[in-house]
């Protein structure tokens, strides 16, 4: 992965012009925007449902998929989406909606994850062990995105978000309060499976851009930060998407003007925001304890 070092002029308009002169940068900005919106929204539900580990496993299964696609000469996207789709089916089979409890589930998911990593390594070795390709699979290829990829991402994201709008409310019910939702005729198992498929789409689309290991910068961190900031679903999803967009745009811009890779900036920025929010929470709580009679209520009506 190459990084360009351009001169930062401190004039935002000229800087933006400089960046958008390069078609690969325009594609990277578009792809990053699409992926950030999808990952921010779906990631919020993933964090709420405590399926972070499942999401991580899907991201890791993206790696053998992409490596296998490289090995047999198929487009990378086929590998990413194929492997994540298969991963979602396997997770649904071992998942808690399939009848096993949380401990069984996480052990089974961990087993799947380890096998996926090993398989990916095998395909990379079979391919000839080209290090640059391994790096792109694991840490992303932000700057090598084509217009065709951007269009494909746009359709996938639009479809995934449309489905999320339709199932969002029952999915929230099933996630927060499964037993009551089931009693109210909400198809909790079907929703659980449908959500895994959406998650697989989001992971595959994100992995294509950020690489298998950095998916979480967009999928988990903004959502986890948003849930610290508010316990209201609507504003929570909006904040999650906004944070994912902000770290993507700022990360791409800094990377353009610095010698260090995009993946590093995007992950560092989202990590920085998360840490700042946790520290802020701590300070607010301390202050509330220090003032007698004050109530540590982060959510006034």
């Amino acid at each position: 992965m190459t990084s360009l070092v351009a001169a930062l002029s401190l004039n935002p308009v000229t800087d933006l012009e400089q960046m958008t002169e390069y078609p690969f940068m325009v594609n990277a900005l578009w792809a990053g925007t699409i992926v950030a919106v999808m990952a921010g929204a779906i990631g919020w539900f993933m964090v709420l449902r405590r399926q972070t580990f499942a999401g991580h496993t899907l991201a890791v299964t993206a790696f053998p998929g992409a490596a296998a696609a490289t090995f047999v000469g198929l487009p990378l996207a086929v590998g990413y989406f194929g492997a994540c789709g298969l991963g979602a089916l396997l997770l649904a089979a071992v998942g808690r909606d399939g009848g096993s409890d949380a401990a069984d589930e996480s052990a089974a998911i961990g087993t799947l994850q380890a096998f996926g990593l090993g398989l990916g390594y095998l395909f990379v070795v079979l391919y000839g062990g080209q290090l640059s390709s391994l790096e792109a699979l694991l840490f992303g290829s932000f700057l090598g995105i084509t217009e065709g990829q951007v269009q494909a991402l746009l359709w996938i994201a639009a479809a995934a978000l449309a489905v999320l709008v339709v199932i969002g409310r029952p999915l929230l019910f099933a996630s927060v309060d499964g037993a009551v939702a089931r009693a109210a005729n909400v198809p909790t198992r079907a929703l659980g499976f449908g959500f895994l498929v959406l998650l697989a789409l989001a992971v595959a689309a994100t992995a294509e851009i950020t690489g298998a290991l950095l998916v979480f910068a967009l999928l988990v961190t903004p959502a986890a930060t948003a849930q610290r900031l508010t316990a209201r679903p609507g504003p929570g999803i909006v904040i999650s998407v906004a944070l994912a967009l902000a770290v993507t745009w700022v990360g791409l811009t800094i990377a353009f003007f610095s010698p260090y890779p995009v993946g590093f900036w995007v992950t560092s920025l989202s990590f920085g925001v998360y840490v700042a929010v946790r520290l802020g929470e701590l300070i607010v709580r301390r202050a509330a304890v220090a003032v007698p009679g004050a109530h540590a209520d982060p959510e006034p009506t």
Partner: protein
Amino acid sequence: MLGSNGAGKSTLLDVVLGLLPLSGGTATVLGGHPGAGRAGIGYLPQRRTFDSGTRIRGREVVRLGLDGSRWGLPLPAALSSSARAARSRVDEMIELVGAERYASRPIGELSGGEQQRLLIAQALVRGPRLLLLDEPLDSLDLSNQGAVAALVQRICECEGVTVLMVAHDVNPILAYLDRVVYFAAGAAVEGTPREVIQGPTLSRLYGAPVEVLEASDGRLVVVGTPEPPAHHHDRHGGARG
């Protein structure tokens, strides 16, 4: 509905909800098949509490009971009158259970008693004719047990709702009971509390000598049941009664 663990109390609730088919006999719920009248039933399952990581406001949990099973996203209250009506209905229920002070905090941060009040509000929000409560006093401390039992009694009278409650300890609710069904050894006895909770009746039900002792404060203690008595902390293992 009283009885020892595993006697079939929660199973009966599943039948009433239409979640479990009967292997024999018939059941009629609100004048129809079990499951057909689901909209007229409010249900509070037996549960452990929401853990502290649940970052959803109590208010949202109540609202999900109202329209959480509908597809599509709700409109903001500023744009739609039905959304405003939904919000005021949620407010009304929160007021009824006395949860105004903490309904806007994340539910995972609330105490067991506070969570239980919000969950009762959730079960009531659609105006059910029948309210099924599975061990609602479980995992509450003694003072909260009394307060929640009194709240359920008040709802029963003010809202005109039939309450069907599963309990393993009769004492916190004894003063409020109209009828008791006692499950044991694959059979059940039904009647007023005083008819059912007495030595001869329970001895016949269990097929073994059982004694009911009355303490000076009116609390009843059942001794000599064939199974070990259901202690409060036994219930946290997740077994369904």
